[in-house]
């Protein structure tokens, strides 16, 4: 199981190296990218800010919970922070499992958990006009009270 936060470009092949033991028949990799537009407005890039020490712990917790569900260590997740340009990868999640249904389900759960719980924020930079912090989510009281 590996979880980390980086300022450097994410290499999908390095994330895949963290999974794929011989007992697994399926690997699912998710990549999140910076899109070139949002709500019809041309986007130039995205600045990711994080509460780094907390984000590292939360990301580790999310990966550990996924590994517990899998029963193996075959989870790798990385989130990038800093300035990203259009098309760059902001988050990558790799999950391997004996069977594909579980690999798809757990990979999907990890990205949903990241969106729900990771203390990371993004400021969208537009081709024209001032940048704006994007609205996000507030964890449910259960999550906030944990």
């Amino acid at each position: 199981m590996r979880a980390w936060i980086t300022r450097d470009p994410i290499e999908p092949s390095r994330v895949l190296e963290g999974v794929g033991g011989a007992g697994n028949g399926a690997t699912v990799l998710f990549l999140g990218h910076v899109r070139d537009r949002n709500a019809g407005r041309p986007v130039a890039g995205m600045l990711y800010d994080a509460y780094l020490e907390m984000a590292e712990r939360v990301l580790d917790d999310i990966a550990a919970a996924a590994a517990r569900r899998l029963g193996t260590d075959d989870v790798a997740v990385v989130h990038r922070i800093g300035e990203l340009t259009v098309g760059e990868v902001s988050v990558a999640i790799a999950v391997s499992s004996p069977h594909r249904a579980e690999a798809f389900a757990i990979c999907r759960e990890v990205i949903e958990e990241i969106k729900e719980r990771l203390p990371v924020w993004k400021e969208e930079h537009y081709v024209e006009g001032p940048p704006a912090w994007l609205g996000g989510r507030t964890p449910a009281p259960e999550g906030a009270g944990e």
Partner: protein
Amino acid sequence: MEPLRVHLLLFALYRDLAGASELELEVPRGATAALAVERLRARGGGLERLPAAPLVAVNREFAPLSTPLRDGDELALLPPLAGG
């Protein structure tokens, strides 16, 4: 009694609104996170633009605003989360 010293962290939109990313705050013994936020906003100078009931983390864990603070706690005000 000595007041509590709390180390306050602000991120993203809240950092921009407050014009600061870190602040030291003194609050009375027995203060909750909610009271610390109230005192912070009362300082003015832009801090009044912070929401009265933000998402907070105490010592890097999400926590209810009713959480009592201890001396030296790290209290973070977190805008709605937007990772991914």
